[in-house]
């Protein structure tokens, strides 16, 4: 369907992880779908990924490092400089949206995600669009 071949998703909720798996692997057939269930040794694990992810989805409320901290770590590596990092969040307080923008995320999707629209969002993200689809 789409031309992306490697996607990383960090999420501690098993249900959400499974859904993303169904979408990415099941429907979109993305060859390399990486799913982390926590952020232990986050950067080490990311660097070890081969091929490296073309887009990274981060759930904000993950431990030990939250979404903001993970973003900061990723951005220290020039090889990930152009990789879109999208926040996924179930809480939609506008103050958090502002923080996400300020922190440098390339977009934000609200949970529950719309699995039918998700492929289109992904395409737009890969084309460089910053997507702030909240609600």
């Amino acid at each position, binding site marked *: 369907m789409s031309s992306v071949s490697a996607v990383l998703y960090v999420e501690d909720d098993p*249900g959400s992880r499974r859904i993303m798996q*169904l979408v990415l692997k099941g429907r979109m057939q993305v060859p390399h779908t990486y799913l982390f269930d926590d952020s232990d040794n986050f950067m080490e694990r990311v660097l070890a990924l081969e091929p490296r992810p073309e887009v990274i989805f981060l759930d904000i409320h993950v431990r030990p490092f939250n979404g903001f901290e993970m973003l900061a770590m990723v951005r220290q590596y020039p090889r990930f400089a152009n990789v879109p990092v999208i926040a996924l969040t179930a809480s939609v307080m506008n103050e958090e949206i502002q923080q996400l923008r*300020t922190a440098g995320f390339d977009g934000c999707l609200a949970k529950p995600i719309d699995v039918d629209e998700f492929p289109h969002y992904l395409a737009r993200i890969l084309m460089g669009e910053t997507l702030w689809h909240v609600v």
Partner: protein
Amino acid sequence: MRLPSFLSNLNLAPKLNLLLLLVLGITFVGVGWLTTGTLRQIIITGGQQRAGLELEVFANQLSHAEEDLLADARVMVRTNGLGEQLADLNFTAVRTALLPQIASLELTTAELVHADGSSELIFDSGGLNVALGEEENLTALLASGIETTTIVDGNGTLLLVATAPIKDQNGALTGGLLISQAIDAAYLEELSFQREDIHFAVMQDNRFVVQDSSGAEKDEFDFAIDPELITQALGGESVTPSDLENSGVDADFYALGPMEIGNQVVGVLVAKVEAEELLTVEQIFTSAILFGFGVAALLALLAAIFFMRRVVTRPIEQLKATTQIVASGNYHERATIRSNDEIGQLGQDFNKMANAVEQQITEVQTARDQAQRSDRVKSAFLANMSHELRTPLNSVINFTKFVSAGDLGPVNQQQEEMLNEVVKSGRHLLSLINDVLDMSKIEAGALTLFVEENVNLRAALEQAISTSRALVADKPVALEIQIDPDLPPIRGDRQRLLQVFLNVLSNACKFTERGAIQIQAQQTAKEVLISVRDSGPGIAPEDQPLVFEPFRQTSRGLRQGSGTGLGMPISKNLIEAHGGTFRLESEVGKGTTFYLSIPIRSEILTPLRLTPEFAL
């Protein structure tokens, strides 16, 4: 009584000092007036007494002069042989006998008179050329053989005359001697001991006939005297007029008395005292008293100012300062005034008030802190709730979708339909959660807008319209769209505006069974106006206010099911948060129109500024 504004705007101490000044001023004027009056009275009395005394002196002097002249005449007549020589009309012999004596006295004239009436002037120092002997009354006196004195007008000069009869050895009258002393200006000057400020004058027939030389020089007797006083004086009384002749510096004092010569009143003596000196004394005295009073008043005023400052101004300023400290937010400050007067009591009352205020403030601050804590707790709760409620819904909705779509294996139609129902319910639950969370945020005042500068209303409307089409897909309802192609980009929260449009449109679609829904959007100078008109059943007037109230649905809406009763109130809040307005017009049976206005550049919205606040 209202004071003029410039007076009432003075501070308290100056006011009181001004009052004191007023009192002192009045007292000063009173004292001055009394002093001058009293002094004047004293001086007048003194002056009058002085004039009276001088008159006595004058009269006495004149009396002595009279006696002396008579004595001289008597002495001269006692020279032996005068009687016989005169009988022989031997004036020469008599003259020879008398001249030495005459010369030693300062007589004016001396005349011999013979019993037969002839006379000879034997001495005339003043060149008067009188013939006293021919005066009728004088000859009569001589004939009577009595020594006498009298006043005679000798060719314009007043003469004091003494007559002494001359007798021979047998005692027969042979003639007489008349000697005279001129009472002229120089004589009077001498009588007044040549004093500069005392003047004597003689009046006859109501006019001044002679005055002392210094008086004449200064025109001292250039005034009119009350005729009644003159009459009194002629009657033998000494009189001193009670008012001053003139007022002011030229005022003088004078006294009148009878001029008695030879036991007869022959004129009026006038003695005048120049008052200038006395008045100068009066002035000095008055000035001294007033000066002394002035100094005392000044000292009193200074003392009052000092006292006022300590007792009134300073405590009040202290209280004022304390008031300002408390007013500026330091509610713990208290006044320290130690006196027990009104100011002290004011200070105490102020402290009581400050206590009450401090207590109130503390209570209010506590309440506010509690409210803030409560708000924080609420916000945290909402954030948490949002997360907790949505996460499971993610699983519910999306897992069901996957199964229903056949991703996990084939499903039959019934299964698919049922699963779709689950998804639908899940979505409904999600929208309920969203609405409830939104309403909680609104009521907690925690709803914040994600403001951007270039929101494309047209695109948002079109997105909402395309989503709503599904709701009327199976109904004979047409969507008529009239959106101005030149709608300007506006300042606002795109997501929230989309939310509003979706809400309004889905409402219209839900309640319209047939007909058309007209969507219009146009711009004015400052706003964008949007209207959505449906041909649904309309809303009764009594139901119209319910539309915007949370959790209230019209009876029809309840019957129609689905819907939280929150959509409209939330939409109204969102539009108003943008500075716009949201209202409806409806008629039962004719449909409903919703009108929205959104400012293009609302001033109540602050666009978000992207600042790197979050530490990376």
